[in-house]
């Protein structure tokens, strides 16, 4: 099987995006994306777990027997998540207080187990690493976009508390877009997550259709056929 890194990247970021196309990992997605910073935090943690588990599972894929593969995958993922959890608790304590509950829940993030089952366990190390990274980035993209939409509509700010996550040098990210905003609590609450995600999915469909019709990005390679 010829490996197309371009294909893997495109799949992870857009065509087969964890959320946009596979509709996986919606629970942590809807739960933490009250602000863009929280989304970014969970996204980075997920990428770390995704890439590390891609590395370990693709290396061990020859010795994991099919009968025990699910428990082994879970064991590997759980170990990595515990490491990330302890790391964040030690060095990003304030962010950990906010995301606390959802970091351990990355273990049950069906997206990671799904990739382990369908890609990492069937491909060599390098393509797996690439796939883990791109799937993680795709997830991060959705988390940040959804978090930003909800944060702007819900509280009129963007990347509030970014300094907690990225350090003082990133304080310039923290913006108040709408001064004296009264807040639109619905968007911060879970229903707002569903509503915003619904509109973002609709926008993705529109963009996909426009691409297929060739009205935007007409010069990009589109010879691979409809998925």
């Amino acid at each position, binding site marked *: 099987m010829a490996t197309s890194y371009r294909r893997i990247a495109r799949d992870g970021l857009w065509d087969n995006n964890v959320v946009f196309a596979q509709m996986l990992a919606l629970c942590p997605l809807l739960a933490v994306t009250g602000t863009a910073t929280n989304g970014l935090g969970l996204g980075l943690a997920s990428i770390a777990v995704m890439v590390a588990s891609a590395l370990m599972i693709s290396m061990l894929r020859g010795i994991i027997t099919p009968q025990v593969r699910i428990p082994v995958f879970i064991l590997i993922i759980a170990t990595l998540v515990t490491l990330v959890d302890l790391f964040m608790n030690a060095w990003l304590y304030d962010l950990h207080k906010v995301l606390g509950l959802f970091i351990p829940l990355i273990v049950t993030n069906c997206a990671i187990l799904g990739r382990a089952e369908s890609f990492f366990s069937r491909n060599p190390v390098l393509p797996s690493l690439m796939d883990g990274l791109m799937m993680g980035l795709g997830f991060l993209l959705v988390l940040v976009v959804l978090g930003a939409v909800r944060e702007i509509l819900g509280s009129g700010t963007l990347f509030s508390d970014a300094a907690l996550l990225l350090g003082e040098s990133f304080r310039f990210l923290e913006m108040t877009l709408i001064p004296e905003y009264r807040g*639109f*609590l*619905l*968007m911060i*609450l879970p*229903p707002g997550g569903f*509503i915003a995600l*619904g509109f973002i999915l609709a926008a993705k469909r529109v963009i996909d259709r426009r691409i297929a019709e060739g009205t935007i990005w007409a010069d990009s390679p589109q010879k691979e056929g409809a998925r």
Partner: protein
Amino acid sequence: MNSSPLIASPHAHDANTVAETMGWVLLALAPATLFGIYLFGWPALLLFLVTVAAAVVAEYLSLKIAGKPPGRFLADGSALLTGVLLALTLPPWAPWWVGVVGAVIAIVIAKQVFGGVGQNLFNPAMAARVALLISFPLEMTTFVEPQPLFSAAAPTLQQSLAITFGSGGAAIDAVTSATILDHTRTELGQGVALDEIAGYDPLALAWGGVPGSLGETSALLLLLGGLLLLWRRVITWYIPVALLGTITLLATLFHLIAPESYASAPYHLLSGAVMLVAFFIATDPVTSPLSVRGQLLFGAGCGAFIWILRTWSGYPEGAAFAILLMNAFTPLIDHYIRPRIYGRDRRGVPLNESVATREER
């Protein structure tokens, strides 16, 4: 020879088109609407106009985006009605953006996203009201004492513009007041029996000269509109009677057992949104079940939820939540309680066949 195409029977004829139905509902709402505007003065009129206009504009833009002919769909009046119903449930002196945000939520998120008129799962006006109540608790629970037009206390048009469109409404000293629902809830919580609560006057509640939402205060005028709809057969009696009956039953039962903790039936029937909801919102043909038994169940469920939410929940009024909850049950009710198909028994077996199998036995 007439060359019109053959159409197979049964030929059902419905005298009401969507536009006519909406027209009758608007007409039936007119007394309560005009009374509310009279009672709360210019700010109420401004809020009403802004909300209705926003609903129509939102509908127009949604139809444009969806590529449907805006003229035809706007002409059915459903967006207008949604705007009116939403405006009637808002506090009369709420700022303009409450009405606009509510109208956009009702039309875009609760209606057009699901496919427009006839496709929505939840009643648009109630979905918007719940969204507003959760998002802006302060603005949505600030009620004023009635200050009728042309009375001394009524704000002038200029002051009214400041109330509705100004920032914060500091331009005028309004006498804000707890609604009877709010007040009673507090007092009952302290063990004061309903009859001893200051301000509880069933006659005033029925007539409507009390603090409350724009068009919900007058139970009698809403009842009048409801009777008009029943007479015109725009609605059937199943849902309103089941709804009001269930509230009466539950309230009376608990009031007899413990009068110091539970309010009596007239209080529940005459206060808040119950009358509006019973005749104008629960009877929405799109979001209520199809069969008679289903509608009775739906109405009873709405009534029970209203009473339960008012009595034990954190909010003084639960009518909007009750409607949304029962809207969510509607597909389930329609799945299990189906109308009998013409020529078949309840299980869907053709009638002559079921006779035949009976004879075989």
